């Protein structure tokens, strides 16, 4: 019974993409359900509440993986790496680029499925940028509180704003 490796890998690949899609779809399905139930509420506020809950859990999942063992510079890279891994899990093409000094790193999303799904579910693209920023800010606050660091993250470019890539600067002021 020889294994057809190409067939096995392509099945797994399809299953992975299906899981990634359904994770994001579920978020927008819940968003729209909540918006429908609360006609007087601001839809963006509802969505942000959802992003906030996501961020809290994401932050908690980061903490056991953090280590300051190799110093602050390595720690900054580790934090950037956690963001990269998380968004890769969603199906984004994302990487870390070096900054102008060791305490600066850029996280660059060259492709991200979130804005596409926002469009599919009629959510405003602006909300997508704000939501993503909120997740990054909340998780970074948790990391800072945990490790006693003072890192900042700022958005310089965003795909939903038509700027081709999302670019975030992670740095120590």
């Amino acid at each position, binding site marked *: 019974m020889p294994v057809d490796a190409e067939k096995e890998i392509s099945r797994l690949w399809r299953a992975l993409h299906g899981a990634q899609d359904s994770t994001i779809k579920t978020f927008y399905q819940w968003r729209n359900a909540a918006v429908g139930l609360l006609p007087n509420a601001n839809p963006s506020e509802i969505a942000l509440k959802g992003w906030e809950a996501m961020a809290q859990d994401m*932050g908690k999942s980061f903490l056991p993986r*953090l280590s300051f063992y190799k110093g602050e510079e390595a720690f900054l890279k580790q934090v950037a790496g956690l963001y990269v891994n998380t968004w890769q899990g969603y199906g984004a093409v994302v990487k870390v680029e070096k900054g102008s000094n060791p305490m600066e790193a850029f996280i660059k999303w060259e492709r991200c499925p979130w804005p596409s799904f926002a469009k599919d579910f009629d959510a405003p693209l602006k909300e997508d940028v704000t939501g993503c920023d909120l997740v990054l800010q909340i998780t970074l606050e948790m990391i800072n*509180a945990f490790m006693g660091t003072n890192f900042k993250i700022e958005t310089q470019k965003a795909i939903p704003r038509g700027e081709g890539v999302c670019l975030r600067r992670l740095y120590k002021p």
Partner: protein
Amino acid sequence: MGELFKWDYTQYPGYKKYPHLFKPIQLGKLTIPNRIKYAATEDNLNDKDGFVTDADVAYIRERAKGVVGGICCMQGVYMDEKRQGQGYVGQAACWDDKYIPGLKRLADAIHEEKAVASCQLMHCGRVGAVEVKYCHGPSPVPQRLRIFRPVQVMTKDDIKRCVDQHATAAERLCKAGFDIVEISGIVGYLISNFISSYTNKRTDEYGGDIRGRMRMVVELIQAVKKVIGDRPLGIRLCSDELLDDVRGNTPEESMITYQIAEEAGADYMSVTLGWQESIYPVISRDIPQGNWLFLAERAKKHIKIPVQMAYRLFNPAIPNKAIGDGKLDFWEMCRPMIADPHMPKKVLEGREDEIRPCVACNLCLARLFRDAPMTCYINPVCAHDHDPKFHITPAEMKKKIMIVGAGAAGLECAWVAAERGHEVHIYDKLTEVGGTLLEARKAPYGDEELYYHINFAKVKSDKAGVKFHLGIEVTPELIDEEMPDTVVLAVGPKYIKGTAPGFDKPNVVGVLDVLAGKVKIGENIVVWGNKKPGVGVALYLAKQKKKVTIVGRNKDFAIDINPSFRWRYNAYLRQNGVTVYNDCDIVEITDNSVTAMTYDGYQIPIKADTVVCTERAPNQDLKNAVKDLGVEIFEIGDMVIPRNLSSAVHDGYKVGLRI
């Protein structure tokens, strides 16, 4: 205070062998006749409102008996009515006078055994609030582990209240009759939270540098000291937090905390290390005995008060030498006396070979963290000390018992039954005792310690008069011929092969044959089975530089290893490059490959020249052959359902009591 009870050890063999363990020592104004201490251990045996129970009194009484005049320290009490300091569901409380009678029962029980009664004050801080929503801490540093509650920052009033609660609780403990008061500041409890740069980010007088972070501790020591009179006050502090990955204190800072505690009035220091949030192992079986003694030695260089320490000091020769060499003053024990409450007593009486050895599995801890009462992997009586059903009493009718299988279950049953007065004969087809453990002990990372139980049970069996018949395979005819009243079957599990094509090939071998070195193995190995036997043999082979892959049907690997130890195996599998496919089975074996299939149908090709089978099944062959002989039959251990050493020992003990 002087000496509380007169003890003369000079006539005992243990005194001659370990003279340093049985020398008196001064703690403050109190003279302790020896250097032995049962260190405070939570047991979750008390009621949900913190009242002391019969079970806890009996548990402590046995340990008090064991320290032969030394210190017996009851578990740490929580001191706040709001229960933010409570870290364990069955933790004793001391926030009101209503708890004094229960605590007095404990102190009395210890005194009745002529031991020194000690009690600990323990606010669990960051790892507390087991029954409420928020725990208390110096700063809002998020929890690394999800099981713990969010931290509520303590105001200065909260700190003052907490110091007062410690002092008031200490007063109550004195009224209850305790001779020593100890403050716990270890493993992530409140005091350690204040001391550590990881969890204390305060900018007021309770934060900042190490002196600022120690301020609360100093206030606490001074407040407690004021109310306990001449009684010694001890403190347990971390000598190394092992939190370098999260910017915890340096070992140098820890030594400063020792000096500050001494200056503040502590009469002795109990040296500990590590936090519950540390990523390094401290007390598991893979850590060599005596590994941490250098920390006690370092403490001795920084402070003048006596230094106590536990942590992998199971063998009395190690602390005896350390005390003799001036590296340690006091031998503390928790787990060795959970496994055998009379351990130091047996050392004194020259009965070391009768000590039921702790196998450092940490099941006791795993239970506590899951809100379950204390139990012991290896000691079936632990936490049942109060229950007569667990006591060995003479049998009403003496019987001739034939035990088939001299493994852990059979031996345990044999000595218990023999001590009850039965005539016990134990048979094994092997010429040595030990059963599966004869080979299983060869797995790396401390598994040789599992076999110590066999040594213990063999000695107990010999002393109880059990007759051994080794190298004899028991058949229905032999049973018929010997005419026993009762047969106990302890023949161990059946090692099985799968049904997929290729399991009949010569490159498919059994786990025991591999560990015994009886079969030739290749370089690329698939281990079939992801429970402990599979993990053990995988690591054994990986240590020989083989490329090993585990394929197992269980959803998670090593489900038969308790969670407080499983994480170590996870790390070792990773370190040794072992690939693990859980929730998978083998669907084909060829001469040089294995095809595994996941539960949802994905196929994984694995290069493999050898397949090691570790899966086990119940073994009913002999039972089926003898069930019609008309003899009373009991089945114990892995032959019933393959499990682990603990189940074998517990089965054996219980059936030994029932016959």
